């Protein structure tokens, strides 16, 4: 589990196509910027338990919590792995960045 003081988000992959998803208030959204940020670890754990229901329902695969930094309303994952996941490969303009709305610079 991540350090308590860092805000966290929940991500998973959609089962049928592998699409990266972010948790938001009991459901999933496509963009990191629209996802829910948890500042309280207990709330995050409760949400993760809820997110696991989607695994049981065969909608998503492997939900997990990851650390983010929030500054001026912008959310940025703490680790490069999650930045790349949220945006798409840095070497081609495909993935979520192709949709245009996801400014998560490295």
């Amino acid at each position, binding site marked *: 589990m991540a350090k308590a003081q860092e805000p966290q988000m929940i991500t998973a*992959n959609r*089962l*049928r*196509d*592998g*699409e*990266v998803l972010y948790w938001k208030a009991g459901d999933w959204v496509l963009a990191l910027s629209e996802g829910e940020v948890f500042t309280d670890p207990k709330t995050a754990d409760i949400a993760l338990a809820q997110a696991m229901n989607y*695994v049981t*329902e*065969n909608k998503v*695969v*492997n939900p997990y919590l990851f650390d983010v930094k929030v500054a001026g309303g912008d959310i940025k994952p*703490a*680790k*490069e*792995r999650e930045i*790349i*996941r949220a945006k*798409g*490969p*840095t*070497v*081609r303009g*495909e*993935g979520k960045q192709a949709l245009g709305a996801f400014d998560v610079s490295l």
Partner: protein
Amino acid sequence: MYRYDEFDAKFVAERVAQFRGQVERRLSGALTEDQFKPLRLMNGLYLQLHAYMLRIAVPYGTLSSRQLRKLAHIARVYDKGFGHFTTRQNLQFNWIKLVDVPDLLSELASVEMHCIQTSGNCIRNVTADQFAGATPEEIEDPRPLCEIIRQWSSLHPEFVFLARKFKIAVGATEHDRAALQYHDMAVQIVRNDEGHVGYKVMAGGGMGRTPYIAHTMTEFVEREDILAYLEAVLRVYNQDSRRDNIHKQRIKILVNAIGVEEMRRRVAREFDEIKRMGTLQLPLEELARITAYFTAPKFETLSDEMPEGGAGFADWMKTNVHAHRAPGYAIATISLKSIGQIPGDASAEQMDALADLMDHYSIDEIRVSHEQNLVLPHVKKRDLPAIFARLKDLDLATPNAGLITDIIACPGLDYCDLANARSIPIAQALSKKFADLSRQHDIGELKIKISGCINACGHHHAGHIGILGVDKKGVEFYQLQLGGSGAEDAAIGDIMGPGFGEHEITGAVERVVDHYLKVREPGERFLDTYRRIGMEPFKNVVYQEQLYAAHAG
């Protein structure tokens, strides 16, 4: 090339139908992800950072134009218009949807292709010299044996659930283009003192966390005994390998734990047992039947003169064209490393155009090399200018085969779920830094290989200059290794010392190269100079100048 017989076609069609059912059951929830994961991996399907990735087997790196056109079609219809050729001579698609995979596999089966055993703890795609059947250096074409190994190892009941994956390569020349000694098991086709052709078998090589160079198990196995011998090695591995620790499960760990002599003794015991049973003798008529599929085309009698070409042709000839066994013919390497591009990537348009080139100028055949390039194995020298001109139009005529910009790089953190750091941007930055062709020629043969994690898909241990990406508190760092080789003079690179940041690593490589240019003796490649003077002088230059740069900055 090999064509499926009735059995092969039925086998692949049944597997497609089986996986279609498995996907349906996964989507319906009849299978959990834990139950499904090993099944999808057996069909080459991974879940990566952004999507599913499908790895398609290209047995011993040989493709027909029909197959390449199908791969282009799949890239367009099921992916984002490109594919990535890998260091196991396979092709990966990065943006596959699980729901599409059964249809995609049906399409592959229609051109005699599949994804079986491209993942999981089984015997993986057998690789070979990309110049097989064309080079004058070889004793015989290694691909018939590769095909026999493929048939023997496909769903082999004993070896479907090994402790870990198992990689086999076959070569037939003194000059090793297939990185034989870095394989779990490798076969080199040799001629003994009596002039008989047979097989030298090596085992226990590998990269990854604990790299080892393979040991020779036997100097000579008779043709009809080769499967018995390979099975003996696999049996010892299967029985005696550790299964309690994922980092100690490869055959290299076993061989080096019990010692090569003990390994040979155990293999010899199994070999005797298998031979006594008499069930695994390779019938020579079957070998001849398979070999017939690989019979070279009837070469025309042609002039051996090299033709003249347009601008850049002479440079391309120098590095990308190699001697062929037939006069008037040549082997042409198509670089997938144009300056600043992603190593190993090819677009659907490039694949289609290459398929046309194959039909016009080659014998409907192309090879994938483990260095992530493509090869036209049988082209007429007189056609080389036209081939070069067409490749130029396609941005596929970069004259850098074997030079410093011919870089191997794994997909790294841009795509791979296991990676700790990105590989491709480092390859691109180095490619741009050394783009000047006269400088590349001055540097000469220098192989840079980059991996984004310790699993070493980018073969960094075998790089003359190897780069390993690591994660240091969430930030990418790069370790430098010098002196590795995947050729006949195989060696594991030495680690230089503390790693470099993303923006420091290309400068560090340049300092290594500049120092080599300064101290090399006439005729020395980088590797030769490194072996003569060792790590220390390079280390001093790289770290001292880095310190100076930091202070100056």
